[in-house]
């Protein structure tokens, strides 16, 4: 079987698996967020933190919940790292420096999981399992909660009530993420990923010399790392490490876990707003972009010319032989089109265009299908922008799902789409303009610039993957990327929740044939175009000086 055919079959297998999970998972999540009952374990949790899960919150209260929880999480994670040296079960690792501890705390709470450390050389069991793994669950659940609040904004009318943050947070964790992650972890163990609390082993190498092997609760963290679109690896090599991702099958399973919730949330959305077709239109938009990017990536990686490439059958540098070009390309696209940021290959080693595709994927705002929750709300904001422009063209005040897109809504949506490009471009420009930061680059020319652009793109969009090649463990990068991650995560949430509140207060406008059909293929096409053009126009100059200059040079 040719590698290209193998790649196509892998994509097909993914599509089938995602298709099978779509309906039951989407409906199940809709049920979870709409139910009135609390599980016993959930009641204990509410009691423990003193939250009332039954009060309805308006958007400021919901936002206060999100921010308060996240601030506490950042502080807790920061302290845990700073105190690591004094804690038991730390494999003898020292406490983490303040700037790196801040960066890591921000990173995991913001669902980014950018890592300026090497897991196996810095973090012991306590921090890995008690701090980082916990954030892998709850930071994902926060994203889903905010998305559900926005969906409720569309679904409800004449009320400002968006649901209860604490109940959404707990249910997302307990009823959705935990069970799927548990099954996923077992499946990964079955594939050969490790799961233990062993210490560090010193083993002799084949060619002489010695090597350290860490044990750890790897499979469990791996499952939620992908499922919660987190991406922070147990090991520095992330999903290219054989303990994390042993073979082609586990590789496909991990990609499936990355994509399954973001895609299925479109069904949850359709279910909750009372029109499955609206969910399908969003799904189609995400699916078209995902498949398009995957095709382009495989094409550029397979078709690359040059003697070394031709011997290897394509651009194999930086890719694992057990995954091949196809398995690596599919993973790379999935991880950058979501906010995952796990890697099974080194994005820096991709062809110029390939690197550009990973960057553009993140710059779209990670909405196809995007992070758990954040993908859906990001896509809905783009839908609002598309509806606004196109809606005018059918001669009506634009409306989406029966809600008018007026001054207030467009103001909030415009603020939302401004944030990440502003963070990416300003921080990158500052890093390039200042004297010290460029010393972190290990390449020159267009590729060196790509390293920095990638780092801030990844941080501000909460992806967390690294281009590799950039030494990001400096005070400058730890601090600025930390800020980019926090601002890129929580500022948009402020606007999303305000938008949800504003939508929920409106009375619905009944649909007529004069209403723009946002459930039709034409609209999905329009949405794809709007996303590509708006992002393309924003980042074209920067991309031209990085990956495009590199890709077009050959």
């Amino acid at each position, binding site marked *: 079987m040719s590698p290209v055919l193998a790649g196509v079959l892998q994509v097909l297998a993914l599509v089938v698996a995602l298709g099978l999970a779509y309906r039951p998972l989407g409906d199940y999540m809709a049920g979870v967020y709409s139910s009135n009952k609390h599980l016993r374990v959930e009641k204990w949790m509410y009691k423990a933190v003193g939250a009332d899960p039954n009060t309805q919150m308006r958007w400021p209260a919901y936002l206060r919940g999100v921010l308060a929880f996240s601030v506490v999480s950042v502080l807790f994670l920061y302290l845990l790292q700073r105190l690591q040296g004094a804690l038991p079960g730390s494999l003898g690792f020292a406490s983490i420096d303040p700037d790196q501890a801040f960066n890591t705390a921000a990173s995991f709470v913001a669902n980014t999981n950018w890592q300026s450390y090497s897991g196996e050389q810095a973090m012991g069991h306590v921090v890995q399992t008690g701090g980082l793994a916990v954030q892998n669950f709850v930071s994902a659940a926060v994203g889903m909660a905010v998305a559900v609040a926005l969906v409720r904004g569309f679904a409800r009318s004449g009320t400002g009530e968006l649901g209860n943050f604490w109940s959404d947070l707990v249910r997302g964790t307990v009823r959705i993420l935990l069970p799927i992650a548990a099954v996923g972890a077992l499946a990964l163990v079955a594939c050969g990923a490790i799961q233990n609390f062993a210490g560090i082993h010193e083993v002799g190498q084949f060619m002489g010399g010695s090597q350290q092997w860490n044990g750890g609760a790897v499979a469990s963290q791996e499952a939620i790392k992908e499922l919660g679109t987190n991406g922070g690896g147990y090991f520095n090599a992330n999903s290219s490490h054989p303990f994390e991702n042993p073979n082609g099958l586990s590789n496909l399973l991990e990609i499936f876990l990355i994509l399954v919730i973001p895609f299925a949330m479109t069904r949850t959305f359709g279910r909750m707003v009372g029109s499955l077709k609206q969910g399908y239109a969003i799904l189609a938009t995400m699916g078209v972009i995902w498949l398009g990017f995957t095709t382009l990536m495989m094409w550029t990686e397979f078709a690359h010319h040059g003697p070394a490439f031709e011997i290897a059958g394509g651009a194999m540098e930086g890719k694992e032989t057990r995954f091949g070009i196809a398995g690596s390309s599919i993973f790379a696209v999935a991880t950058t089109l979501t906010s995952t940021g796990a890697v099974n290959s080194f994005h820096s080693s991709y062809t110029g265009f390939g690197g550009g595709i990973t960057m553009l994927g993140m710059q779209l705002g990670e909405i196809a299908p995007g992070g758990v929750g954040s993908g859906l709300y990001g896509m809905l904001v783009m839908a609002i922008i598309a509806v606004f422009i196109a809606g005018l*063209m059918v*001669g009506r005040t634009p409306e989406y799902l029966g809600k008018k897109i007026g001054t207030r809504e467009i103001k909030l949506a415009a603020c939302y789409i401004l944030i990440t490009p502003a963070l990416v471009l*300003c921080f990158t420009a500052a890093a390039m303009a200042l004297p010290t930061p460029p010393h972190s680059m290990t390449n020159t020319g267009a590729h060196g610039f790509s390293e920095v652009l990638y780092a801030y793109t990844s941080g501000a969009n909460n992806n967390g993957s690294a281009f590799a090649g950039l030494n990001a463990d400096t005070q400058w990068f730890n601090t600025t990327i930390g800020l980019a991650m926090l601002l890129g995560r929580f500022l948009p949430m402020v606007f999303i929740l305000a938008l949800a509140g504003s939508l929920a207060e409106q009375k619905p406008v*009944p649909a007529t044939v004069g209403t723009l059909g946002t459930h039709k293929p034409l609209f999905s096409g329009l949405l794809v175009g709007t996303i590509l*053009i708006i992002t393309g126009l924003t980042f074209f*100059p920067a991309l031209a000086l990085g990956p495009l200059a590199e890709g077009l040079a050959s």
Partner: protein
Amino acid sequence: MSTVTPTRAPHQDAPTGHQSEGRVGGGLFDPAQLIRSFPDALRKLDPRVMVKSPVMFVVLIGSVFTTVLACLDPGEWFGWAIAAWLWLTTIFANLAEAVAEGRGKAQADTLRKAKTDTVARRLLGRNEERVAGIELRIGDLVVCEAGDVIPGDGDVVEGVASVDESAITGESAPVIRESGGDRSAVTGGTKVLSDRIVVKITTKPGETFIDRMIALVEGAARQKTPNEIALNILLASLTIVFLLAVVTLQPFAIYAGQRQSMIVLTALLVCLIPTTIGALLSAIGIAGMDRLVQRNVLAMSGRAVEAAGDVSTLLLDKTGTITLGNRQAAEFVPVKGTTEAELADAAQLSSLADETPEGRSIVVLAKEKYGLRERHQGELAGAEWVAFTAQTRMSGVDVDGRKVRKGATGSVVAWVEERGGTVAQDAQALTDTISGAGGTPLLVALEDEHGARVLGVIHLKDVVKEGMRERFDELRRMGIKTIMITGDNPLTAKAIAEEAGVDDFLAEATPEDKMALIKREQAGGKLVAMTGDGTNDAPALAQADVGVAMNTGTSAAKEAGNMVDLDSNPTKLIEIVEIGKQLLITRGALTTFSIANDVAKYFAIIPAMFAVVYPGLDKLNIMQLSSPQSAILSAVIFNALIIVALVPLALKGVRYRPSSADSMLRRNLGIYGLGGLVAPFIGIKIIDMVISLVPGLH
């Protein structure tokens, strides 16, 4: 005072419906207007004016900035060329607005002539004093006699007069204004042609109808509409995004080893920000109001025009809108024992003295269908005519010992029975059938030597205007529901509703019913438009999202509505909706066009900026532009010229044909989305070819 209104297009929208091409086309665009408005465009360069449009304000700053840079390096032609074209971009934007405003100015001048200083004859008790029109206060009573210009808006409290309102409506036929009832309102600036009336002033000087009209057509009272504000926000945020993209480009460029000149960066910024729509946005709004004015509709707020595009329910009065004003005789149905010819003869005879439109229509039907020559009252010697009155509800004639009567069923039955006659058995059945079909039955009776008896029934029918069904079908395709409002009974209403093809009807409608209907529709999230003229319509007009008051109506109605139709033509509501939609479509189309344009500009400018340091980027120069400087200049020139090229479209509005949202979106996306993507590639290439012919520019 002038009685001619040369600037206004003649009222040409006969409600015959289907003129499919360019129904809501705008006024014609005259290129000479561009030149005439040039001084105004320069005047608008004032930064305090420019700041209202964030996009164009950025261009203004860019123009100043590049000019300063060009002065610092006066030997370089490129800087001067960019600066000059940026100034032109700014001026073109102002020009678009000035042209749009200029079209209202001529109209305002005509109106001002009507507002010449009038002298009012104010009543003080029984005495009269002469005061200037502007000194009148609300509640003052003024006398106007033939030849006087009415000094202010008010209601007639005494007398009846014919008034020439052509200064305002453009309609030269005089109208009757009388005290009491729904025809009592008079407008300042109109002229009394006959008789004497006493007017109670209801508006302060300076706030009269004519003052408001002047302010409206001049655009002075124009406020941004909600959609326009929202669009401005989106454009501002896009401007910020592109500002960031350009500002941050310099450090990247320096790292790449190709520092860019400030002139090039400014040129890139101006090309990227949505100048096309930013320049034309306010012109589109002014032109939209202007299109209404050309159709003799005054919108008191731009918000109402926009709401008109969103309307999903139209309340239409039956009479005058759906049906011709009056019922007409459709057939003669004789009772047993009478022939149709006999009945027709009697019907005609009895209607000769009936001057109402119904009566006339009976005579016409008798002539057309039965060939009965119309007789004149003088022809019949010794005839005693009984005219129709509202009290007797009968008309007829006594001649040669025969008495013929025609009238409402009850009156005629009573008349026959009074004379000891009998009402034929089948008469009742016939009238019931006609009522059931939505018609109005009139009985014809005769008293002669055989006694009094009923001869038959005249079927009076509401005549639905031609072309209404097609118009309602169109509205349905646009997603708009039509509801007919009528005072008729439900049976009649249903029959007419079916014939006209409206979606629903409200029969035996009282003002309260109308109000309740509007509120019910609004509670379901719908926007409602209606027309009205009477004082009792005022609450409903105020409640409706779009309330169009007829100019013939009372001042209460005119106050309550947010639009006034000077032609008092209720069918115009449909056109108002179309104009509202066209306004929104034009904005959306030009926004899409503007954003799509940017793609080509990147392909022109980015290779020009960086192909030296990264030669691979020259592959993006797919237009094969001749030199970097020419490429950048071409993009800037295209960006400026496209504004002028689109001014006619902004003023006329995008062609609009009623159709579903989906087909409209497909069409407009094709033209303005794809067109916007492709057009600049061609335009920039052509400009570049022209520039490359200029010697010495390389």
